[in-house]
């Protein structure tokens, strides 16, 4: 009956799905029983968003081999378009769940579009230069979003682009019943907090299914081939730009959905939240979890989001400890002599398994 599980890769994928489902069941059970401290309970939805961010960035960095330092930009696009969608439909669709689903889809679509437009110039480059250009686009998105003023009333959406910095919400000319959704530099405020843990869980599962199936498909093998040897891939007729673009756009769309989930879980959100540091944070999840390893990304995103909060009792030393842990973990997992030491203590298992996890 479970014959398909004989394939090692499939087995590994289903193990990942099972882990996520199990974690969700355990967490929701504990949450209903009131056994989770508020500090953790409040973080559950953001953690889901971070997990999706990590999975999507892993697709670009780990699977396609392009280092992106501007991933937070797509999250920002998704967050703001998602918030606008959810808020402007609050009259038309009173049901929170339906609105959230629409917000996630709108967020994903807008971010995918942004990913495609940015991908055209960016994917002409590679290596460090690609990294810098993605960083540059991330910063540009941040500044452009800061200039947006958006409001809604019964006549529809009103959007202003505040180039001089002198326009305010009043310039929108909203009617009495109108609501300002994004107030330029002040960001979005007064957002309904409609994201739920269940929605977060579903989004994580959707992201996993999309990414893992993409990686295992013909397209995924082409992307891997491009990553491993671009010239060889080209010589056998694989269009490198096309496949890198597929990875880039899918990743942007998932990041947009994650952004929409994130944005609709707080009542206030400034554009400066999605800065270079946020991109780096997501990259840290991916690298610590293992390049190409989706299960690793999920675990790393979860632990590293909770860690700074769990370190609160170190008070002033909190971020110092976090930095030291980060450095030590990187050295511990990457230093050859340390690795050999570990290898001698714990005898190596079958090497074939490692290949699986490297690609999973």
């Amino acid at each position: 009956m479970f014959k398909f599980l004989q394939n090692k890769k499939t087995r590994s994928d289903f193990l990942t799905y099972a882990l996520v489902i199990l974690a969700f069941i355990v967490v929701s059970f504990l949450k209903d029983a009131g056994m989770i401290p508020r500090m953790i309970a409040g973080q559950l939805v953001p953690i889901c968003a971070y997990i999706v961010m990590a999975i999507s960035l892993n697709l670009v960095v780990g699977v396609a081999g392009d280092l992106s330092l501007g991933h937070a930009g797509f999250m920002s696009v998704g967050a703001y378009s998602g918030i606008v969608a959810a808020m402007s439909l609050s009259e038309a669709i009173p049901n929170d769940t339906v609105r959230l689903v629409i917000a996630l889809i709108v967020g994903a679509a807008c971010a995918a579009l942004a990913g495609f437009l940015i991908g055209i110039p960016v994917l002409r480059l590679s290596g460090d230069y690609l990294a810098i250009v993605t960083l540059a686009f991330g910063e540009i998105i941040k500044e452009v979003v800061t200039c947006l003023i958006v409001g809604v009333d019964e006549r529809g959406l009103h959007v202003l682009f505040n180039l001089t910095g002198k326009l305010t919400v009043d310039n929108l000319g909203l009617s009495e019943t109108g609501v300002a959704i994004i107030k330029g530099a002040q960001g979005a405020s007064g957002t309904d907090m409609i994201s739920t843990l269940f929605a977060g869980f579903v989004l994580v599962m959707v992201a996993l299914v999309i990414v893992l199936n993409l990686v295992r498909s013909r397209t995924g093998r082409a992307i891997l081939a491009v990553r491993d040897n671009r010239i060889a891939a080209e010589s056998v007729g694989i269009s490198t730009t096309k496949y890198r673009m597929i990875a880039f756009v899918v990743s942007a769309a998932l990041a947009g959905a994650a952004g929409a989930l994130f944005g609709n879980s707080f009542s206030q959100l400034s554009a400066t939240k999605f800065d270079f540091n946020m991109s780096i944070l997501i990259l840290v999840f991916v690298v610590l979890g293992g390049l190409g390893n989706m299960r690793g990304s999920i675990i790393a995103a979860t632990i590293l989001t909770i860690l700074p909060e769990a370190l609160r009792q170190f008070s002033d030393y909190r971020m110092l400890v976090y930095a030291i842990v980060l450095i030590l973990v990187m050295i511990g997992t990457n230093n050859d002599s340390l690795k050999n030491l570990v290898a001698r203590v714990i005898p190596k298992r079958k090497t074939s398994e490692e290949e699986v996890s490297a690609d999973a």
Partner: protein
Amino acid sequence: MTVFLQYLVNGLSMGSVYAIIALGYTMVYGIAKMLNFAHGDVIMIGAYISFVVTSYMGLPAIVSVIAAVAVCTALGILIEGLAYKPLRQAGPLAVLITAIGVSYFLQNAAQLIWGATPKNFTSIVSFPVPAFLKAYNVSAVSLVTVIACLLIMAGLMWFTGKTKMGKAMRAVSEDKAAAQLMGINVNRTISMTFAIGSALAAIAGVLLCSYSPVLQPTTGSMPGIKAFTAAVFGGIGSIPGAFVGGILLGIIEAMAQAYISTSLANSIVFGVLIVVLLVKPAGLFGKYVPEKV
């Protein structure tokens, strides 16, 4: 016209600060092939050391610069030895993340030592500027910065071109393994690069804070990122490239703020960077190395 020249001078002054930081970035990148994101924070440490020496110990400015250079050099070697050396064989992403860890560490250590409240850095250079220059907003700090920047660039070009150590650095940059076979101590050469890069960071820190007086643990972050952009702009790894990139970045930023929009100035800077990279994928002065099979 006068106003235009004033903007140009403002841009030049800020640009030469970026240029000095970018020179440090480019040195480390050119030889160690790593993006040292902690560079901006070494700048901040340098500025703090200078502040402590002048304000708390009451010593003259020049002593504070020497102290800052000494401390940052030592710090650079220490960071390289403890955090980057163990990762010499590891993938570049691991090194990148470690550099970010070091950056967090330095910022938080600085906050624990000197507190979160910003300090006001008193400019270490003050002499009367000739009246004809004063009319164009030229300040003493700007003059010193531009001159220091030119001297440092000339010095670095001489060092990497003529001295034995400099040649060793270039050899390591070309091919680590071959350099090792030629009897070059690769580890020592890389340590030396970090020492030089960090010494430059100290000077940059003092000049940055003389120009913009607020000193706090996050002071180095944004100038660090901008200078990094400048280095890429000019072609990362290239010494004249970092200089030109820094100056251009400063001028573009000033002009964008003056004539387009202060809110979008950074976007315009980054936009120009993107266009430059699309036309010249290795930056203005970078060597484009075609991929070999």
